[in-house]
């Protein structure tokens, strides 16, 4: 019997026997998400090509690369948001906690409860601040009012937004500023208590001040969550991440600890990109 405490994403509970699971990567970090020969197609076009990547648990991993390199596509594969795009299919393996995300019996709804996401543009629901945060918890179970309130407070505090909105919980979320809205979205994702937080260029629509607050927040969340952040901004990747993956034309070119990748890149393409010769 399998005695896991977290809900499985796979409806087929029996683990595949005889399979050796690689739990640590070359950097001797515990692996949370691992892709093996993973490809994604938009109809016939290959957007991601046979990517092998082990994302360490509890760290911040940045994915950088020029526009159209497939970094967002890869990110959105991890919580299967790509399912929304007609004609999009995956090949190869993308393993999360020992289970193939694109496996036959995987329930994307269960998966997404464990893999939260923050989007490029702040996208709060047209509801009150409280209802925005409570949306995820309300799906999962019936909580008492006080429990729900406590959870909302905790999530907002985790997202460093509590002090700013504690008196405005019943105001519309759309009345907040852009940066506040984005932190609200992070709090909303945290309220579901995920293990992984995916961030798809979370600061590209924000001003520098709001950006730095989000970056501080990412630093705070490090350790509690596995964070994968896609960014256009190499300085940002250098500032916030522990590991960086460089994608180019759908392929993973290089994956290394951030300091190493930005100072001593192994691949020529990486060097060209980080020195601004293209991209």
């Amino acid at each position, binding site marked *: 019997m399998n005695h896991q405490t977290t809900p499985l994403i796979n409806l087929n509970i029996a683990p595949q026997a005889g399979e050796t699971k690689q739990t640590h990567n070359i950097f001797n970090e515990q692996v949370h998400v691992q892709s093996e020969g993973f490809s994604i197609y938009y109809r016939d076009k290959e957007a991601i090509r046979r990517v092998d990547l082990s994302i360490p648990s509890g760290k911040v991993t940045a994915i950088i690369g020029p526009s159209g390199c497939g970094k967002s596509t890869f990110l959105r594969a991890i*919580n299967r*948001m790509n399912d*929304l795009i*007609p004609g999009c299919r995956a090949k190869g393996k993308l393993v999360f906690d020992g289970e193939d995300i694109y496996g036959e019996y995987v329930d994307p*709804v*269960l998966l*997404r*409860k464990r893999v*939260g*996401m923050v*989007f490029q*543009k702040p*996208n*709060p*629901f*047209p509801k009150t601040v409280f209802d925005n945060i409570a*949306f*995820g918890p309300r*799906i*999962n179970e019936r909580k008492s009012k006080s429990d729900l309130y406590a959870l909302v407070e905790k999530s907002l505090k985790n997202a460093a937004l509590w002090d700013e909105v504690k008196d405005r919980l019943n*105001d*519309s*979320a*759309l*009345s907040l500023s852009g940066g506040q809205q984005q932190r609200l*979205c992070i709090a*909303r*994702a945290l309220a*579901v208590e995920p293990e992984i937080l995916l961030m798809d260029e979370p600061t590209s629509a924000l001003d520098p001040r709001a950006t730095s607050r989000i970056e501080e927040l990412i630093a705070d969340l490090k350790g509690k969550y596995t964070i994968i952040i896609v960014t256009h901004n190499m300085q940002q990747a250098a500032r916030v991440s522990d590991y960086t993956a460089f994608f180019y034309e759908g392929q993973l070119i290089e994956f290394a600890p951030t300091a190493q990748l930005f100072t001593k890149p192994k691949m020529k393409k990486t060097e060209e990109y980080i020195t601004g010769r293209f991209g």
Partner: protein
Amino acid sequence: MKRETRHILDHSFSGLGFFSIFLLTASLVVVLGPIFARGISAFVFKGTVEFRRLNYEVFNRGNKNNIRDEIQQAAKYREPVYTMLKQFKRQLNDGEIPGNQDYSNDFKELSKSVTELLGPEPGKETPVLMRDQYGQTRWDKAKETLHQVLYMEKWDYSDRSAMGKKVFVPRVQEYKGTSLESLFPYMEKNLENMLRPGLTFYWQFLTDSSYDSHIFGGIFAEVTGTLYLVFGAMLFAIPIGVTAAVYLSEFANENSRIVSLLRVCISTLAGVPSIVFGLFGLAFFINTVKVSGSKSVLAGSLTLSLLILPTIIRASEEAIKAVPRTYKEAALSLGASRIRTVLTIILPAALPGIITGIIISMGRAAGETAPIIFTAAVSVGKPLTLFQTLSQPTPALPWNIYNLVTEHEAVDQIRHVQFGMVFTLVMLVLILNLAAIILRARISKKLRG
């Protein structure tokens, strides 16, 4: 292009736009103005003592003593009329009328007009039909009837090349030298005393049942019938239409042939003439499914709901599609199922657009005549209770407007009722729309934060 040319083109275009809007407004005023002006005459008019007598006797309204006094006052002025008529009738029977003119036919006509004006002669037995029990209740009608009394209708055939012409000959000339000669100036002079007109605000026009097929009373049955039909149609069309729209925009496979075929069908349905829906409702809901033995509000509502379904589906689909994709992504990324996303995020955000569709179709359902002819509408009937709507037909404003104008035996007598109905229908649609628009604005405001 030169700057001046561009300028002229821009200006002439905005001029054209302004002109079209002006044209639209002007035609609206031309159409609605008379409807409003004449429609209001069903509510506000000069009522005679006969109206107050009717109001007391039928609806038990008004002060008994005041009305009795008024009737007595009026009777005092009416008495000479009856005396003169009686005297002339006796002379006519005894052959004592001087001159060789034959008055017997015209006298019958004259007595009829007088009865129409003042009601049955006191002391005579009460007529069977209600319309014969009262004189003219409205001052404008009374003046028309007075004209009938004072003038004789004759046809002039002197010009053989043309059609006969109607001419009015004053009776006072015709009856010159007889005992009746003084009747006409007397009636003309004392009409006000005989009928005692007074400004009346008859708002109960909306809440009174009709008596003697709309000659007296109000249009309560028509108003309730229309409301039943509209809300019944909404009851069926909104859940089905919105569900269909959700399916088409959120769940259906865009590339599927069946789905494209469905869309074509919905568009076609929107273009089907309404009379076809009426026949379909009769053939399907009444004859095949047998939702009711014959015409009923239920069958009419179902038919109307089919008629407005395409509008609701289309509007809802567009509204759902206009909801930002990011809302959907956010909800799904939080682990919401598709149906939960639709119910808690997409539909609330699409609500203003959906309500717009509902507003449009509500106006349409209220005004449609053809679909209810075969399925729900009757010319005369009592207001229904909610339970009766399952099996009983009802009068309804659009059908009764048509029916009164084309089939009523006293069309000219009840013009004010017809206009009152048109006015009420227009106002009803306006009020329904206004309520929906306010609701929509409130929701939009809430969504915008």
